[in-house]
């Protein structure tokens, strides 16, 4: 209960001390501190990131006062980066905050090595050309990168990282690891030691459902040539058998057993998601492999050998109706098996490390343990480079989005957000940015968008007039509420990337501020 941690209590309950430590070690660079960038950083500074560097070459003008909370009237005429940085520092003195008064575009151009000092770069309101260049720089330097932009009632967030691996993906709903369909000898023996036909009604209603189901499944298998219920009729029959075993109506443990019986029917072995990770080329490890892939290699061996097709046991059990004694015993049996599995994996990890010429102790026991506990939930996220996406988007996907009603507005905004950059390159301003000439801008934007679509291989595709008009009406404005939304999403993704917990978004998030039917586009 160290004092400074109290203020982080509500977030420590989400990402724990480890996640917090990762945040406090991280150094974040922000490009452009308009409302989108400022709001992104605000959420990160509050959470206690290690350091921030704000980069913006512009001066505060009166227009900024209407959409950016980090500047006020006294800031007008001063460096925007300086003013935003000063306000952010006020929010949390544990954060090291600094600023550089320079335009990101020129920094990208003249000093690419500058970015390699950061854990992560948040690039806001960048044009297409700078995005492409920065993406190349950050990929080269292995610096994580997030793009965010708000534009009228739309905007986007896009992560660009070569590869992001997650051990603690913390999914909301995930089937617990009880092995009811494939109990190991100790669990089977424990179940056998308990008599379900006990006369004592108190004992009967306090037998945990895990024991009930293991025994029932065993009994079923014996009378069905070793197989478990698979057809609808068999499953119903199995549940009826459970119901018939109840001696009183108030037996919660039997009710739980009936509800959990699907866990007996579930297929054995690992999920296709995990199989895909095991099949990944990166699981063939060498001296350049990361700890994650070394552990995956060990996991693969375990599943093929000691695990007989199963991943290491997670080791925890959910709460269930039970006497304290039986529950605690059950918990110990699960934990012992998890520890034994983990030990095997650890030995394999050390052996592999040695084989690839690394220090066999370079991966800690705690790390291996966490990996084993989460083995079924591993995630690997990869992101296409901006260049690849922009020059050769996945065409079938793009065509699908263009014809799918649910996606039509989002993909329309996606195209238009790129078209406005082309427009700006040609006409030196964004469509509708200044007063007057709206009709001309609308027709020019339409031509630009159609041209872009055909460059992407979608000849003949078009966007609705309404959406094109709307984009011109936006006139490159940054509305505070939209910037706060986009900035909120960007900061959330930053946190997931830095803590290496939870699963970051895939693709490009297109914000639809008209009716909130936002979408992720994977192109």
């Amino acid at each position, binding site marked *: 209960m160290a004092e400074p941690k*109290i*203020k982080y*209590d*509500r*977030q*420590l*309950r*989400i990402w724990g001390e480890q996640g917090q430590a990762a945040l406090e070690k991280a150094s974040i660079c922000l490009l452009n501190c308009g409302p989108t960038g400022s709001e992104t950083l*605000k*959420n990160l500074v*509050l959470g*206690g990131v290690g350091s921030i560097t704000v980069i913006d070459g512009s001066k505060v003008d*009166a*227009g900024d*006062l*209407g*959409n*950016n*909370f980090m500047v*006020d*009237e006294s800031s007008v005429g001063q460096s925007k980066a300086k003013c935003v940085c000063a306000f952010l520092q*006020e*929010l949390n003195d544990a954060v090291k905050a600094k600023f550089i008064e320079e335009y990101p575009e020129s920094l990208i151009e003249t000093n690419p090595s500058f970015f390699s000092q950061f854990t992560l770069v948040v690039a806001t309101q960048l044009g297409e050309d700078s995005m492409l260049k920065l993406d190349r720089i950050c990929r080269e330097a292995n610096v994580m990168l997030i793009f965010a932009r708000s534009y*009228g*009632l739309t905007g986007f967030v896009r992560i660009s990282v070569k590869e992001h691996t997650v051990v603690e*993906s913390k999914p*909301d709903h995930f089937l617990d690891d009880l092995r009811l369909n494939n109990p190991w000898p100790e669990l089977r023996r424990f179940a056998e030691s308990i008599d379900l036909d006990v006369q004592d009604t108190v004992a009967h209603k*306090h037998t945990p459902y895990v024991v009930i189901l293991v025994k029932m499944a065993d009994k079923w298998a014996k009378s069905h040539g070793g197989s478990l219920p698979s057809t609808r009729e068999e499953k119903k029959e199995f549940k009826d058998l459970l119901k018939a075993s109840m001696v009183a109506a108030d037996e919660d443990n039997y009710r739980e057993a009936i509800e959990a019986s699907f866990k007996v029917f579930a297929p054995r072995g690992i999920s296709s998601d995990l199989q895909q990770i095991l099949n990944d080329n990166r699981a063939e490890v060498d001296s350049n492999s990361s700890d994650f892939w070394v552990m995956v290699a060990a996991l693969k061996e375990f599943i093929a050998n000691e695990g007989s097709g199963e991943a290491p046991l997670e080791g925890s059990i959910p*709460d*269930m109706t*039970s006497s*304290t004694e039986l*529950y*605690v015993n059950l918990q110990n049996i699960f934990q012992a098996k998890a520890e034994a599995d983990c030990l095997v994996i650890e030995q394999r990890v050390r052996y592999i490390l040695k084989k690839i010429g690394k220090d066999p102790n370079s991966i800690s026991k705690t790390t291996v343990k966490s990996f084993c506990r989460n083995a079924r939930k591993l995630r690997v996220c990869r992101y296409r480079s901006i260049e690849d996406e922009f020059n050769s988007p996945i065409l079938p996907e793009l065509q699908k989005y263009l014809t799918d009603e649910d996606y039509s507005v989002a993909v329309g905004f996606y195209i238009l957000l790129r078209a406005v950059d082309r427009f700006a390159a040609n006409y030196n301003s964004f469509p*509708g940015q200044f007063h007057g000439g709206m009709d001309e801008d609308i027709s020019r934007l339409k031509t630009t968008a159609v041209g872009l679509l055909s460059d992407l291989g979608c000849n003949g595709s078009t966007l609705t007039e*309404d959406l094109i*008009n*709307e984009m011109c*009406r936006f*006139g490159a*404005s940054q*509305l*505070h*509420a939209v910037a*706060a*939304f986009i900035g*909120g*999403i960007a*900061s*959330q*993704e930053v*946190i*997931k990337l830095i803590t290496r917990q*939870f*699963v970051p978004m895939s693709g490009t*998030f297109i914000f639809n501020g008209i*009716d*909130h*039917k*936002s979408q992720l586009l994977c192109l």
Partner: protein
Amino acid sequence: MADTEAQPSRSRDLDKLLLRPGNLVGANFDPGEELRDDLAKSAKVLVVGAGGLGCELLKDLALSGFQNLEVIDMDRIEVTNLNRQFLFRFEDVGKPKAEVAAKRVMERVSGVNIKPHYGRIEDKEIDFYSDFIIIALGLDSIEARSYINAVACSFLEYDCDDNAREETIKPMVDGGTEGFKGHARVILPGVTPCFECTIWLFPPQVKFPLCTLAETPRTAAHCIEYAHLIKWDEVHSGKAFDPDDPEHMKWVYNEAVKRAELFGIPGVTYSLTQGVVKNIIPAIASTNAIISAACALETLKLASGCSKTLSNYLTYNGAEGLHTKVTEFVRDKDCLVCGPGVLIELETSITLQKFIGLLEEHPKLLLSKASVTHQGNNLYMQAPPVLEEMTRSNLSLPLFDLMGKTTKTTLHVTGTTSKNDKKTSVLRKLRVVFKGVDGVTDMDTAGGA
């Protein structure tokens, strides 16, 4: 035009949306400087709650063209607020949230006026709430949402075809978060479902059975709740447990540790003890920012018509990837809160006192300790004592006379009702019809006297 290139105005960006016509806009959209000025000068918005969502909402609304805001919150600032409630600093701990939040936003956004109210939402006169064009909710409790919802719905009137009268609709925008998840919704009473129509979206919290705590504890939480709910009362006869007293919390923690050791149960920590006892909901800045921004944007769109509005419920989940979903829920036509009101048929002779007694037994209401108002007149008030005394003499008078002998009218009653073994204050609208008076014969009444 005011926006020249050389000297951008403060509303440079907002003007694009408020001054220019569009095709994907609300039916009432009338772009122009007048709209912008109306928004700034006459549109009054109430923000309920000055916590994680409330702080963001105030900032977002102040930067969305609104200049007349009020905020109500009964809490004082705590250290654990500082990771997300960005208007508060360490030296503000202990001060009322509403006051500090209002002051900070006014300091930074010139031209904005925010009136803070430090107190309970239930302690405000119902009339207080009628003043606002939109009520934005940044709350973390179901009870408080229910209450404000009932207040907003109490302004709603129906025409003779049971259609909501547009000028009586008090829109609400509601947000809620938990960890990486949240929701934002737009409630137009009488048009879209009110909070009560979709109350099933908020299932009551599951409590541990006392026999589990007392006899078969299995988890750390069971041990903590045993110490908190059973052991505390056994040892401290009569002394109430105060979750904000660190001594009390430490005592519960120590007892929970002892019990856990006794049963061989792992996992009792001080942090978990606090979490279980206070039912702490994890909260982070980013989710609050996202949900509040959605709510503020909807407030701007509702007030100006500058775009379509959310119809009507947005869910957000950022834990596993990023998922947003819009669901169009439908109204419950028989909703006790936003419907036309519970119909009650009465004799003209019934006294106010008898009527109040009747509310207690009415199967749809089960309302005890009712205070009764009719068209803004207090017929009987349970509190404060001054008002009680002033209205007490009405109790023995016939209700029919008290309401100016109208045969068919609407009454508002507030009182308490029990839900899930918990007493909550509620506000109900009643349609009262008197029997045996000309023009009213053989009404088909539901659940009358």
